[in-house]
Structure formats: structure tokens, C-alpha cells
């Protein structure tokens, strides 16, 4: 029999974890990773943080140095796109015409940025932010005293706004909804971030749906309806992402706002697995399918996929978590707050920059948003998994150490 081959489509965060996990768990066959970017897998979070600001270089953000992949005997085909999967022959077709066969196939295709459906997004100076190549182009338009408009007040938009402000630009954030972060968090946290960004001198305009982007040789302004115009030398659009499911869909795999996988990272074809942003997985903690856009999910699910491939299946039951760094604020989120019936705050949310919001359902903690509160984040994770009823008087009393809550 020929040697087994495992093909991984998409050289991102999940892929970087998968290849080493496969070796650690005993996969002896070949491993090939096909990626349409020209870089080895890198950390995306710094793209809107330390890499955008110039504090980190490409080498600093590579997830692993090339030597690790060499040692793990992983072959990378970079700058190559997988065009199609043929499940009958068990082959994938590359955009250079080559076709390669697999025994196991893993889709780690990540996500696509959602496009803003208005005229003018192709003007020079207008960008989305998903990959190194985007940041490299954005850097050419950053300048002290120049104007930046960020379309979309999500985490990536707000982080980008913070960095551009620190680089001396005048920054305006345009949000179509009535508050920033509406899709991902509660009113309280939105209000907090609005306050902080305003304190830092960033203008936030809500209910501002951009209807067109205008300019000549370069972008000049974003226009909202009939009466509002915002001058801009640089526009960055961050209005969300959608899972990259097109390959899986064309191959006839089950899809529902993400490639559907079970708790072992298997798709509806037993020889095809999927991990990371492109999936919607069954999560036993929440007893439903969830789609997550986070490094945690990419790393944990890839580890699960490796176990399944190596015949050591372990169900996925990691607690979702996420972080965001803006100015001097470290936000750490654990759990999913969907379904909460009460918010309990520890610390001063109206002033200052340090507090934690706990989301409860019938007295048990579902999720925590910790702002410059690492202890609350760390203990919050344990309290969520322990599913105990918490003493709310103690939880709101900062004089009571967090550790006492889990006893």
C-alpha cells in the first residue's frame, strides 16, 4: 500500500496546530498543507494590534519557525489554491492544474471578509483587514495628522482605530447599528468602549450606514445617506466575516452557516474533517451547534481533528474564550453569554478602566467579560465550567478575593 497522505487546505492558525498535533499523536504518513497566501501560518490577532503599529515584524508573528515544519516533515504548497475536492477519487485539484490524492482531508479554510455593497470600495486607500498583505498596503496610507475612517465598530474595527490614533491619525468610526460591538456583546460593554474611545479622542458615529465611498486618484470621503460626509485619506472596512465554505459546499458536504462538524471535527464525509473559523461545530457545553471566530477555537478544534485522524478520538469540550487589546485595555472574554437573564458587575464600569461583567442564567455564570481584570477572567473560566450557583454578594464585592467564590 502507498503511504498515507493527509492534505490540509488553508495554511492558517488551525493548520499550524494540526500539523504538529498530528505528529505528536502518531501520524506517520505524509502531511501536505496547501495555502493561497504566500506566508507560513501566522498569528492574525496582531494584524490589528502590534503588527499594524509596527511593534512586531512578520518573523515575530509566524506561529512556528520554518525549522519546526521541516522537523515534522510537513510539506507546504504556498501560493496555491485548492479549486475542488473530488470525493469519489479522493483527490483535490489545485489551481496550477495538479491533482493530488488524499486518505484524510482537513479543511481549515478560515473565513472571508464580508464585503460592503456600496460604490467606491475599489478606490485606492480603501481596505479590508484579514491578511498580512492587507496590512502591508494599509501601512502606505498611514500618516501623522491624516484622516482615517473605520467602517464597522466590531473588535477588529475598534482595535484598528486605537492603533491608528496612537500613530497620530484623526480617527472616526462609523457604525451602522445604534451601538458599537452590537453583534458580539451587551449594551454595557458597548457603552464602556464608546466612552474609552471618546476619551482617547476617537469620534464614534452610530446609526451611520455608509451609502458610498468617493474619491479621485485616492479615496476622499465616506458618505452616509444625503447629509453626512466624512473626509478620509484611509478607509478600513471591518463589518464581519463569513465562513469559507465554498469548497465544502461544492463537494456536497453538509453546511449551515459553516461546515457542519461533530464534536470530533468530522464533516458529513468520514474522511474529511474541518477545523477553525470555517466550521460550525456541535458543542457539548452548550448542547447546540456554534460557530466561533477565535484562535482558541482554531487551536482546540485542530487538536481534536488530529486525535480523530490518529484513531484517538476525544470530544471537543473546550470553553470558548477570546481577547482584545485596545489602548491600555486588556479585554478577556470566557464563555458564551447567549441566554443570560442577569448581568452582575464587579468593579466600576462607569468610570475608570477595570471591571468585570458576569452573565448569569438562573444564578449560574455563563460568561464573563473581564476588562483589565485577569483574576476575574481566570476564575470566571473555572466558575463557568463548574456550573455552580454563585454568591452574588461576594461576586460584586471587590474586597472578597475571587478565589473564595469557588469553595
Amino acid at each position: 500500500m502507498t503511504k498515507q497522505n493527509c492534505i490540509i487546505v488553508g495554511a492558517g492558525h488551525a493548520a499550524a496546530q494540526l500539523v504538529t498535533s498530528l505528529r505528536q499523536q502518531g501520524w506517520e504518513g505524509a502531511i501536505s498543507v496547501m495555502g493561497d497566501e504566500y506566508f507560513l501560518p501566522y498569528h492574525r490577532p496582531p494584524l490589528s494590534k502590534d503588527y499594524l503599529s509596527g511593534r512586531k515584524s512578520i518573523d515575530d508573528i509566524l506561529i512556528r519557525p520554518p525549522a519546526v515544519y521541516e522537523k515534522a516533515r510537513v510539506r507546504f504548497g504556498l501560493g496555491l489554491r485548492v479549486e475542488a475536492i473530488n470525493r469519489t477519487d479522493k483527490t483535490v485539484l489545485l489551481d496550477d492544474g495538479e491533482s493530488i490524492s488524499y486518505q484524510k482531508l482537513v479543511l481549515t479554510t478560515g473565513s472571508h471578509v464580508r464585503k460592503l455593497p456600496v460604490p467606491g470600495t475599489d478606490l485606492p486607500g480603501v481596505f479590508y483587514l484579514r491578511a498580512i498583505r492587507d496590512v502591508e498596503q494599509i501601512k502606505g496610507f498611514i500618516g501623522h495628522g491624516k484622516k482615517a475612517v473605520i467602517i464597522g465598530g466590531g473588535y477588529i474595527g475598534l482595535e484598528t482605530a486605537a492603533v491608528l490614533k496612537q500613530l497620530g491619525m484623526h480617527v472616526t468610526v462609523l457604525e451602522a447599528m445604534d451601538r458599537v460591538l452590537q453583534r458580539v456583546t451587551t449594551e454595557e460593554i458597548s457603552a464602556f468602549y464608546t466612552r474609552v474611545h471618546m476619551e482617547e479622542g476617537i469620534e464614534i458615529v452610530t446609526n451611520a450606514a455608509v451609502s458610498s465611498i468617493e474619491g479621485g486618484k485616492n479615496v476622499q470621503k465616506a458618505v452616509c445617506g444625503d447629509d453626512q460626509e466624512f473626509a478620509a485619506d484611509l478607509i478600513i472596512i471591518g463589518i464581519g466575516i463569513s465562513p469559507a465554505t465554498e469548497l465544502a459546499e461544492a463537494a456536497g458536504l453538509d453546511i449551515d452557516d459553516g461546515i457542519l462538524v461533530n464534536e470530533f471535527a468530522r464533516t458529513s464525509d468520514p474522511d474529511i474533517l474541518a477545523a477553525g473559523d470555517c466550521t460550525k461545530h456541535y458543542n457539548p457545553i452548550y448542547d447546540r451547534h456554534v460557530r466561533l471566530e477565535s484562535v482558541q477555537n482554531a487551536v482546540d478544534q485542530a487538536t481534536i481533528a488530529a486525535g480523530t485522524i490518529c484513531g484517538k478520538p476525544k470530544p471537543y469540550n473546550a470553553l470558548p474564550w477570546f481577547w482584545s487589546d485596545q489602548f491600555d485595555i486588556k479585554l478577556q472574554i470566557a464563555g458564551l453569554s447567549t441566554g443570560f437573564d442577569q448581568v452582575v458587575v464587579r468593579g466600576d464600569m462607569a468610570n475608570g478602566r477595570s471591571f468585570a461583567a458576569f452573565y448569569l442564567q438562573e444564578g449560574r455564570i455563563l460568561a464573563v467579560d473581564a476588562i483589565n481584570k485577569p483574576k476575574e477572567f481566570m476564575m470566571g473560566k473555572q466558575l463557568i465550567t463548574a456550573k455552580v450557583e454563585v454568591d452574588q454578594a461576594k461576586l460584586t464585592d471587590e474586597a472578597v478575593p475571587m478565589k473564595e467564590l469557588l469553595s
Partner: protein
Amino acid sequence: MALIKYIEHNGTEHEVHVENGLSVMQGAVDNMVDGIVAECGGACSCATCHCYVDEAWFDKVGAAKEVEQDMIECAAESKPTSRLSCQIKVTDELDGLVVHLPESQY
């Protein structure tokens, strides 16, 4: 350059050379040392790079700074010698360093 020994919870030892300026976490990740997950890539946000500095080395490595200290204090299985390995920078002085890894990073 420093030679660092990582000892997994099950006793497996890894001895690797790590360049100055890198973190002890990066040294582990770069050499496929199981037991350091490092989800946030060194942003001091996840505590999945938790390690115990060998007693003999603890003073030389030094204590954690504020945010890190808070994270460690509330980490599962935290000990007085706990550190987040992404916050320990490798220097010549750390040649021979020994760190022990916890059973789980979660």
C-alpha cells in the same frame, strides 16, 4: 543562547537550545514540546503557557509582573514557582534552565 530543559508532567524531558530574546514559551512551541499550548501567542492573555520554574532557578528567573501574577494566582494548579513561560525572556544567564509543565493547560 541557552539550553533549556522542559519536563512534562508525565516525566518526558526535552532539552532544546533557545536563542536569546525569544521567550521560554516560544522555545517550547518551536520544538514541539507538548504541554505548552500558548493560544494567545505570548500576549499574556491566555495562561495556556503555564510552567513551574525549577526551585534552583526561580530566583534567577525572577518573579512575575502584575498582570501575569494575577493570571497565575487564579490558574488551575498554581504553585509559588508558577510563571507564564511567554513572559520569561531567554538570556545567556538562563543557560541550563529547567522548567516543569503542568498536567493540563486548561
